[in-house]
């Protein structure tokens, strides 16, 4: 089991220092990304899921830094690399990016450089890590575009991003990310900006990658539907903490945290007909600068009691890898509403 983990994150804390204030975006999270498995990180916007991805890739904005904790990349040939100690844009970190850990972003419209052709940008990625001739790199790029299911790749490769549709552009992004067959692919809400039919194609494509290239995928989303379909493991984040994580089956079948349960209840399940009763979670995420004492979800939690407000609940292990940070998790699981 152990050797399957590609990236292990232990007690990571990342703080933001914009507008002369200090915002504790990530407040100590731990997770493992395993080879050939898809780890889904789910949570409302502003819970710190994108910051996690940026921390791993060391792409944090200037006025922020990793306070504590470790991010270790277990590479095959170069042993364990402590990413959190690497110089942000240093030589070693840059050799990791793209080659070992690749990333795709949310809005394909703005993620590609508008003034260079798609082919050129992919070739740039390949030549950054392997010294191959331009011709050979272009051939590989062509093959990649074909693999990603883009029609007429010979013509498309020399076209500009604005000539691609949303879905096509995301495929091009994935082609670029996969160009040096990275060990880990981090996808930061890849389909949010796309419409539903295209979403399905992208997920199908990612599933194919996992199987064929055995890449570990860390998928960030706020859509529980995506989690149910794709996830092998799940980590639910709220206000900078992972409040519940474990294998997809355990978490979805018997959610231990009121927030996970509420999330599951708030999405319409396809095919369950029109009269499903969907009840949204009351209230909204608190202001990060004056956080509630104790459990962050307490103000919006149905099971909230006085004890919840005292301190942030510890991590309770429930069965194999299932972890919940709620003092009344037994009741929640038993409830089975």
């Amino acid at each position, binding site marked *: 089991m152990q050797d399957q983990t590609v990236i292990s994150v232990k007690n990571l804390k990342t703080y933001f220092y914009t507008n002369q204030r200090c915002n504790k975006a990530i407040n100590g999270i731990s997770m493992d990304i395993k080879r050939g498995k898809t780890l889904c990180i789910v949570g409302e916007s502003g819970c710190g899921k994108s910051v996690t991805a940026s921390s791993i890739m060391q792409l944090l904005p200037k006025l922020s830094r990793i306070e504590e904790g470790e991010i270790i990349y277990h590479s095959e040939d170069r042993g364990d690399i402590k990413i959190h100690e690497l110089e942000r*844009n240093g030589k070693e970190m840059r050799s990791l*990016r793209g*080659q070992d850990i690749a990333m795709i972003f949310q809005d394909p419209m703005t993620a590609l450089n508008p003034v260079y052709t798609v082919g050129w940008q992919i070739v740039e990625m390949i030549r950054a890590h392997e010294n191959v001739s331009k011709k050979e790199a272009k051939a590989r790029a062509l093959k990649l575009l074909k693999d990603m299911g883009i029609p007429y790749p010979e013509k498309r490769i020399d076209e500009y991003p604005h000539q691609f549709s949303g879905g096509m552009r995301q495929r091009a992004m994935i082609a670029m990310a996969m160009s040096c067959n990275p060990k880990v692919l981090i996808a930061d809400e890849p389909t949010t900006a796309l419409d539903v039919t295209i979403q399905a194609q992208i997920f199908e494509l990612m599933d194919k990658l996992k199987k064929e290239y055995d890449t570990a995928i860390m998928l960030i989303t706020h859509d529980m539907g995506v989690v149910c379909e794709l996830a092998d493991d799940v980590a639910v984040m709220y206000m900078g903490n992972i409040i519940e994580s474990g294998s997809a089956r355990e978490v979805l079948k018997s959610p231990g945290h009121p927030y996970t349960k509420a999330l599951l209840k708030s999405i319409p399940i396809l095919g369950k007909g029109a009269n499903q009763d969907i009840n949204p979670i009351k209230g909204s995420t608190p202001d990060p600068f004056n956080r509630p004492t104790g459990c962050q979800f307490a103000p919006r939690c149905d099971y909230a009691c006085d004890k919840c407000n005292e301190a942030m609940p510890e991590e309770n292990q429930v069965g194999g890898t299932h972890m919940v940070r709620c003092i009344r998790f037994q009741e929640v699981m038993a409830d089975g509403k």
Partner: protein
Amino acid sequence: MLKYILKKILGMIPMLFIITFLIYFLLDLTPGDAVSHLMDPEALARLSAEQLEALRETYGLNDPFVVRYFKWLLQLVQGNFGYSVSSGVPVSQIIAESLPATLELSGTALLISTLLGSILGVAGAIKKGTIGDNVLTVFGMIGVSIPQFFFGMVCILVFALNLEWLPVGGRTDPSVVSFFGRLKYLILPASVLGISLTAGVMRYARTSMLDTMNKEYIRTARSKGIPEWRVNLIHGFRVSLTPVVVLVGFRLPTLIAGSVVIETVFQWPGVGQVFNAAVRASNYNLVMIVALLFVIMVLFASTIVDILTAILDPRVKLDS
């Protein structure tokens, strides 16, 4: 592309017509006419009224200005640029002699200011907020904050008279034949003019670079693991090049008009001086032709800018 250029040129014709008419009208409004500026006041004082009238007659200055304008236009269409009222030299010859000097000076200055301005602007944007950014900004600002003639005279005093590295002024000397000998004359005026134009380019480059650096594709580029300088220059600056090109494009007309101030201070035989003297002496033919060249260059510059933006930024289509 060709269709676009043709459309632009056709659009130019009415503009040229309006502007030259306006210039002629304004020139006619200025007090006195070519004759009254022909010689210095004392000599003029000795002429009798009939002699003055006779002189005016020879230059056809007596018929109404509209008639004179169309006469001039007719001549222009036949390719005859007319003669300078004061010296009788064909205008084409005067321009042929003075235009290369201005092109040389303004051209070098534009080059210096574009290069220096872009470098300072990009460096300022990358190092935003640090002391380096402040120092670069102050250095860039020097050019635009000191009046040109004052900056020029101090440079002459320091480099030409006290330190004697460079000649005092003028474009060349018959005894100087080598290219570098001639270059020596160009250094001071071109750098004074260049530095005073730098601040504009610097601020534009800095602003557009700052905008670009916040864009998504810069983060994507970094996530591809390519070196920091490539991210900033190849991805960042390449995109923010367009506004800089637009600004420099709109400065092309100075290639024609030159800078009267710099040319006067550095005894540079350019069009600026000739044009300044011609306008004050209501020397119609010379003023009209130089103004015509200037306006053509302005309209030409706006076309060039459109084409360049289309080349630089694939999203922009020409015939939009």
